[in-house]
C-alpha cells in the first residue's frame, strides 16, 4: 500500500457522512503544520517531505469535501473501482437531466436571478436526496449496483450545480 487512506489523514473513519466543518478545520490545521514557511530553515529532505505531505493533504481534502468524489472514493476503498469514462444509459434520469439543463438555459436567457435561486434550491434538494440514498446503501453488499448508479447520478448533479454557480456569478456582475 502506498498513500495512506484519505480519511486516516484527517483522523476520520471511512464513512460517507462527514462533518464538513470539522474536516475543514482539521485540514487547515494540518496544512499549517506542513506549510513551506515552517520549513524554510529545514534541510532539503524535510522540505521535500513537507511539500509531499501538503500535496497529499490537499488531494485528500478535495476528494473528501465533495460528495460524489467522496462516494467514489469509498467504493474504491471497498474494491469497486468505477470506470471513469463509461457511458451511462439511465434514460429516465438523463431525460430529467436534459430538462433541467434546458430550464437553466432559459433562466440564463431571461437573466432571471430569482429563478436561478429557486432552481438552485431544488437542485440542492435533489442532491441531498441522492446523498441520503447513497449513505443508506453503500455498505450493503447486495446494493452495490444501486450505489454505483447513485454515484453517477451525483456526478451529473454536481456538474449542474457548478454551472448554476457560474451562472449566478455572471448574472451578479
Amino acid at each position: 500500500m502506498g498513500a495512506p487512506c484519505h480519511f486516516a489523514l484527517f483522523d476520520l473513519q471511512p464513512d460517507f457522512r462527514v462533518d464538513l466543518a470539522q474536516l475543514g478545520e482539521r485540514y487547515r490545521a494540518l496544512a499549517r503544520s506542513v506549510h513551506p514557511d515552517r520549513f524554510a530553515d529545514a534541510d532539503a529532505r524535510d522540505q521535500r517531505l513537507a511539500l509531499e505531505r501538503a500535496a497529499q493533504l490537499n488531494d485528500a481534502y478535495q476528494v473528501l469535501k465533495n460528495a460524489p468524489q467522496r462516494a467514489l472514493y469509498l467504493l474504491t476503498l471497498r474494491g469497486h473501482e468505477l470506470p471513469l469514462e463509461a457511458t451511462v444509459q439511465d434514460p429516465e434520469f438523463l431525460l430529467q437531466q436534459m430538462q433541467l439543463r434546458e430550464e437553466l438555459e432559459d433562466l440564463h436567457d431571461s437573466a432571471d436571478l430569482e429563478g436561478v435561486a429557486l432552481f438552485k434550491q431544488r437542485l440542492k434538494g435533489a442532491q441531498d436526496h441522492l446523498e441520503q440514498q447513497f449513505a443508506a446503501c453503500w455498505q450493503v453488499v447486495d446494493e452495490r449496483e444501486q450505489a454505483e448508479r447513485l454515484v453517477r447520478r451525483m456526478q451529473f448533479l454536481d456538474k449542474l450545480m457548478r454551472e448554476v454557480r457560474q451562472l449566478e456569478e455572471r448574472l451578479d456582475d
Partner: protein
Amino acid sequence: MAYSEKVIDHYENPRNVGKLDAEDPDVGTGMVGAPACGDVMRLQIKVNEQGLIEDAKFKTYGCGSAIASSSLATEWMKGKSLDEAEQIKNTQIAEELALPPVKIHCSVLAEDAIKAAVRDYKQKKGLL
C-alpha cells in the same frame, strides 16, 4: 489545449440541433451521458419507409468536443440505412475532428448515442 478547426466549426455552427417527437413511431431516441464530465447527449433519428434515416437531430450539454462529435454524427447519419449508421465508429469521428486523446471519450459518447437511438427505433418497431 486548442480545439481543431473542425471542432470549432461544429461548435459555432452546430448542424441539426433540435428535437424530434419522441412519441412518433418513426423516431428513435438515444439518451446517453458521461458521468465523469457530466455531459448529457440526446440524439434522435427519423426513419422513412425505405428504412433510411431522413432526419437526425441532437442536443448536447457538454464541452465543445462532445457537441462537435454529436453534430458530426447527425450529419453522417442522414441518408444512411440503420445498419450503415450503426457502422459509424467513434474512431472515425475522432479522426475527422482531430480530437486529442483526452477528448476521445466524447466521440465514444456520440457512437453510443447513435447505437441507443437505433436500438430505441428498432424496439419501437418490434425489430429487436
